[in-house]
């Protein structure tokens, strides 16, 4: 073998090795089972009491990387906290398995398949991003595994699904919240910019328009409607078309929104920016900078205006663990996990079908984000809050009832 070949082989090894080493710091994202409980779960432990497995698996699929990573990672803060507080159900230890769906529909379906077939999850939590959830939902529906969504708000996530539920409100309501906000604040002309690759964004834009039409009696106030796609970073052309709009409604994810807001201000737009719950990520402000000051958006929860009894201990525990104020995504992640545990307890069984029935019957669950009752569609009906960016932070503005 020539020295040249040897050299290149060595270099490849170095790269591979660095990859393996590099993997380790990322691993803690997946909360591994405590070392005491060996992965003996697969085989029914010999003399276990009847029907009582050695451990059960609750799966979580969230975007830990990709365009929605901030949302998934915020959600996981809440899920991890809930897991720490509740590591056992019906006297059986829980093993939580996290699979990254990489903000991608196809990956989300794969992640769900892996959780069900390989990890043998009896219930699943997730996912941030409606499109991810819809893709995962197809898989869980066929397998008959109940899923508790944390923050996917598009109506289609639970529509026609027997096994998909969610801890959050849905977009027809969320769209109305911002349309109402605009009308009440004297906005006469709005431009809508939607992400056409995301069901979430397209749905919200449509619901906003519908509510606008109901509230003002016509569509005249919608001066322009433009779209972009996943991965687009240049919004100047869409912004060039907004004419004399006083406000821009851009119900997309925080990363797109941050760039869009920055570019709009650079092009001399002086009006109001309005958005939706997917704006709630620190990246909105860190990327968008001072241009985001004054932007308003609808969301699920604000620690400032938390009213439920469960909220106070949650905020305290969260601050003790992460040294920051919990976001709406974290609160929903916490609630979603606790809702799964609650359903298992009420079902008094590890049978997915029984858990599903218990989930569907959830009534007045004292969640952090409000009292949660699952309706006949599998959705929670809850208040929304309107938040505003002030001095680089998300501040509570008002609460809107359904």
């Amino acid at each position, binding site marked *: 073998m020539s020295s040249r070949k040897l050299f290149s082989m060595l270099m490849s090894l170095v*790269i591979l090795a660095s990859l393996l080493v*590099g993997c380790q710091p990322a691993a803690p994202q997946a909360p591994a089972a405590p070392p005491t409980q060996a992965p003996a779960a697969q085989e029914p432990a010999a003399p276990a009491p009847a029907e009582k497995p050695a451990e059960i698996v609750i799966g979580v699929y969230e975007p830990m990387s990709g*365009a929605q990573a901030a949302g998934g990672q915020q959600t996981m803060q809440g899920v991890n906290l809930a897991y720490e507080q509740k590591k056992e159900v019906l006297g059986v230890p829980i093993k939580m398995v996290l699979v990254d769906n990489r903000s991608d529909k196809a990956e989300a379906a794969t992640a769900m398949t892996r959780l069900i077939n390989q990890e043998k999850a009896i219930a699943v939590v997730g996912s941030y991003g409606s499109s991810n959830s819809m893709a995962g939902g197809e898989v869980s529906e066929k397998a008959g595994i109940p899923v508790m969504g944390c923050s996917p708000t598009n109506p289609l996530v639970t529509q026609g699904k027997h096994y998909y539920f969610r801890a959050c409100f849905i977009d027809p309501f969320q769209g109305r919240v911002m349309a109402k906000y605009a009308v009440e604040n004297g906005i006469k002309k709005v431009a809508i910019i939607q992400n056409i690759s995301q069901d979430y964004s397209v749905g919200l834009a449509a619901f906003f328009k519908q509510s606008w039409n109901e509230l003002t009696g016509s569509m005249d106030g919608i001066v322009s409607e433009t779209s972009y796609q996943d*991965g687009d970073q240049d919004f100047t052309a869409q912004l060039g078309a907004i004419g004399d709009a006083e406000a821009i409604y851009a119900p997309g994810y925080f990363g797109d929104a941050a760039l869009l807001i920055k570019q709009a201000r650079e*092009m001399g737009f002086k009006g109001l920016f309005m958005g939706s719950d997917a704006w709630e990520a620190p990246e909105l402000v860190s990327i968008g900078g001072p241009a985001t000051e004054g932007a308003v958006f609808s969301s699920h929860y604000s620690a400032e205006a938390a009213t439920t009894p469960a909220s106070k201990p949650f905020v305290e525990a969260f601050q003790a663990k992460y040294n920051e104020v919990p976001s709406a995504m974290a609160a929903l992640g916490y609630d979603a996990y606790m809702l799964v545990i609650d359903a298992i307890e009420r079902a008094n069984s590890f049978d997915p079908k029984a858990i599903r029935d218990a989930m569907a019957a959830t009534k007045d669950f004292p969640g952090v984000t409000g009292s949660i009752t699952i309706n006949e569609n599998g959705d929670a009906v809850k208040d929304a809050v309107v938040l505003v960016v002030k001095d680089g932070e998300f501040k509570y503005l008002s609460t809107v009832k359904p």
Partner: protein
Amino acid sequence: MTFDQLLQNLANGISLGALYALIAIGYTMVYGILRLINFAHGDIVMIGAYAAFYGVAMFILPWWISFPLAILLTTGLGMIIERVAYRPLREYPRINLFTSAVAVSFLLENLANVIFGGRPKAFERPAFMNEMITIGNTQVVSYTPFIIITAVVLFGGLLYIVNRTKVGMAMRALSKDIEATGLMGINTDRIILFSFMLGSALAAAGGILWATKFPQINPWMGVMPGLKAFIAAVLGGIGNITGAVIGGFLLGLTEIMVVAFFPSLSGYRDAFAYTILILLLLFRPTGIMGEMQAEKV
């Protein structure tokens, strides 16, 4: 559309086009010499942006040290990739090289995801690139002229190297016939390595400028620019440096103008831009500047 809006869109289109052009040059140079479509090129763009980001954010270097340093580092990475992933495969069928390029691309993306993290990072623009410039009713930010001027200067420098220096002459010779060039006593390995370095340096510059224009960097940020720059290179006639630049500007302008003139079609922006590309290639299969080449036997 008013005249002011047209000017505004022109400014936006040209600055986007300049970025595509810078990245496209790297594709075209490597293709011209090795007949290899270097699919990792877009990811080198990403690495360049991250290197500059860490220089400023972590080591608190001023931009005029951090940016050149990032270009230097990325150039080194380009060298390593050529040495490890491409050179050993050069004598084997072209498809092996191509597969290796795709593998390098995935490797870089996933390494970046593990090392830098999947959450997007905010890229700090140097203050002088953040000034508003108002001309009439058109408003641009000072990074726009900076991007355009840098692109033109780098392009001029590259043309000088390729057309007026000995290395450039060797590069041109290589693009005609590698073996014959070797027989003339030119160290072909060195020249190929040099082209990769040049391409990577330009990609890094493109990545840094991309990040100043769109100040959000993530491990997959190079995928779309890379793909589009590749298309720009094909549009201009792959293998031709001037063609890549023209293709880049054309693509940037088309993308912006399609949306500007037909706002309701904005969701299909790429579909329209690329329909135009297909049509152009149907009528000019070798691209705008490409020349017909006799198949080598």
